[in-house]
């Protein structure tokens, strides 16, 4: 993750393997050895893949198993955090991710908003008191979090949010309606962008708070998605009392703090190329082979897909690009690749993509149905293009 790292960060030191070995190569080898021992002691090997395995872009948790998934995620994140593997960077992060491929790793999906979206804002903008109370539980996966940003009338134009917070002694009373809150139904904390000064220009009257999702006045209603699943929600806030101590950053300085979360989210979604199944191309090629459809044209199509995925991965790793630009570029490249994957799956599977012919093809329908979400979530592709054009290429700004 590209999270901003405070010098006083709570993570345990420099992590495993630090300082050992002669050179960088030896250092990495020592790190890998320790990491493998750590994983061997805790995780079973990954079961062999089968053609009917899920091919999902959105990790939608089976509601029947949600409590179990959440418990496993929390235990695993705590183990990673305590051993110093939770916030690896650079070649160690890559090495660790590569090692994980051999194991049956618990799904961290329920914790990702807290880890990659909320925690970076708390770390960068929170008071020392807030960081002391909230950061470690977030990073260790003890608590789960959701975003309370978008509203029915504030989507891409996020700064127009209307949920109000009114001062009441050393607390605030918050009232309004939020939407598209992934994981709000199991979240302990909500990161809420609310209006604290209705008379200021729209970007200047906003403040960011952490809201206790169990507080009176918080009501969560699931929204059913086009996939059929329900991993995001509407959240109604009615006179919810929020202590001023749970404010992230300065009063009326919420826009800047929110941008930290949005940038981290974009970086995480750019990293969504890692959420695309790593063997996507091989699996489609295998499907094509079994169906006698691995023609030169199909191979060209699959090779093009392979290149598109590779490009997204490579750009995500560039260190000579401004990180914000790299995140937007990578997100858009992921979506180009996903569009090619949908077309390739359609060409390879034919009717088996749309109807369950009991031949292993229908597993890809989940991929197909998840694809549109990636172009919308975390700032639409159109917003990403605007960001790149204005901030990276220096083209004139849109009216705001």
């Amino acid at each position, binding site marked *: 993750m590209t999270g901003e790292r405070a010098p006083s960060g709570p993570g345990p030191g420099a992590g495993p393997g630090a300082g050992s070995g002669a050179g960088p190569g030896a250092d990495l080898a020592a790190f890998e050895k320790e990491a493998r021992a750590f994983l061997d002691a805790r995780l079973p090997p990954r079961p062999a893949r089968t053609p009917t395995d899920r091919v999902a872009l959105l990790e939608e948790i089976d509601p029947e198993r949600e409590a179990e998934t959440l418990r496993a995620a929390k235990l695993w994140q705590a183990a990673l955090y305590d051993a110093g593997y939770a916030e690896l960077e650079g070649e160690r992060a890559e090495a660790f991710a590569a090692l994980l491929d051999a194991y049956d790793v618990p799904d961290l999906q329920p914790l990702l908003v807290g880890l990659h979206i909320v925690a970076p804002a708390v770390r960068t903008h929170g008071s020392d008191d807030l960081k002391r109370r909230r950061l470690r539980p977030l990073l260790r996966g003890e608590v789960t979090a959701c975003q309370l940003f978008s509203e029915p009338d504030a989507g891409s134009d996020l700064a127009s949010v209307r949920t109000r917070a009114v001062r009441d002694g050393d607390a605030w009373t918050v009232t309004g309606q939020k939407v598209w809150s992934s994981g709000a139904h199991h979240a302990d904390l909500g990161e809420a962008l609310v209006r604290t000064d209705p008379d200021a220009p729209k970007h200047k009257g906003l403040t960011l708070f952490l809201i206790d999702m169990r507080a009176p006045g918080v009501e969560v209603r699931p929204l059913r998605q086009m996939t059929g699943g329900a991993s995001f929600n509407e959240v109604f806030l009615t006179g919810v009392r929020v202590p001023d101590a749970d404010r992230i950053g300065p009063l009326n300085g919420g826009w800047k703090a929110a941008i930290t979360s949005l940038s981290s989210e974009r970086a995480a979604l750019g990293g969504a190329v890692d959420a695309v199944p790593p063997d996507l*191309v091989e699996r489609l*090629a295998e499907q094509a*082979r079994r169906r006698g459809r*691995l023609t*030169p*044209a199909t*191979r*060209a*199509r*699959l*090779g*093009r897909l*392979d*290149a598109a995925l*590779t*490009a*997204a991965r*490579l*750009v995500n790793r*560039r260190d000579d*690009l401004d990180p914000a630009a790299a995140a937007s*570029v990578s997100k*858009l*490249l992921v979506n*180009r690749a996903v569009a090619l994957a949908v077309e390739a799956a359609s060409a390879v599977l034919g009717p088996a993509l749309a109807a369950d012919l009991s031949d292993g093809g229908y597993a890809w329908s989940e991929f197909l149905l998840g694809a549109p979400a990636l172009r919308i979530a975390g700032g639409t592709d*159109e917003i*990403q*293009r*605007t960001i*790149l*054009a*204005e901030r*990276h*290429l*220096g*083209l*004139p*700004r*849109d009216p705001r």
Partner: protein
Amino acid sequence: MSYDLRDLVRAFCADTLPMPEVRRLMGAEPDPALWRRFAALGLAAITVPEEYGGAGGTLADAAVVAEELGRALAPLPHLPAFLAASALMEGDEEAREAYLPGIVSGELAAVLARGGVRADGGRLTGTTAPAPDAGTADLFLVVADGALHVAETAERTPLTSIDGTRSLAVLTFDGTPARRVGPAPSPAAGWTVLAAEMAGGARAALDMAVAYAKVREQFGRPIGANQAVKHLCAELLLDVEAAASMAASAAREASPRAGAMALAYCGDAYVRVATECVQIHGGIGFTWEHDAHLYYKRAHASRALLGDPDDLYASLVDGAPQAGGASAEGASAEGGAVTSPR
């Protein structure tokens, strides 16, 4: 090394090959004196080891040089020099000693040609595929029947090309004596270097388009204020950054697979960016006096030069029902066809 190297090539191009000079040289064979000046900087076939007079650079260095030359549309025979030297480095010692120093110094115009030629009893017969800057070459490396051959004569037939910044010719042999000097060379290095050259060209075309979108005003504001234009520029930025990443990665990996992927990707990216560069310029972009068409032509000609993207892409995916029976690594590109580069 690479940043100094980039500056060095960029400075050479800025001093020696500003666009009016590129235009003056267009449509001709490469200028030998200019090429020797470039070579004197140690930049020709930069990967040749020092024992043969070379700079001993890496493939990544060669990619940096090519990227900058591509950006400037430099009409220099850097590609044939690199292709020929790379092929010779896989060949026998005698040939390396005989030819590499001349290629590196710019004195010897060597070319590598593939396709369409048979080797039989020490003689070559047939006509090659189009080879860059072969019209004035005086040493002819030919891949034929799974081996690399050297001939000192050939009938050179220059081709008319849409791209005036790189000359092309076919070579015809008619029982021409030739010596076998090594195995058929891997195409990977050449693919990677051309990919980098195209990535550099794409970046130049994007820079040109964005600069124009900022200053050209219609309806009382810059055309780049319209989302139709600014979002298009952002899409082209994706092509440019992805192409740069692919070329750099292929140069680090130096594998046929990475080279094939980068060549295909960068070819498509360059054509797209150069095409939209003309479009963003509107009518002025379609004029001879504007430089946009030079990139458009270079992009199309370069993409077609060493392999078709669809063939290259198809080669990335095992085609046979039982994988593993595909052709050996690098045994490819004869007759222009590309086979599995795994």
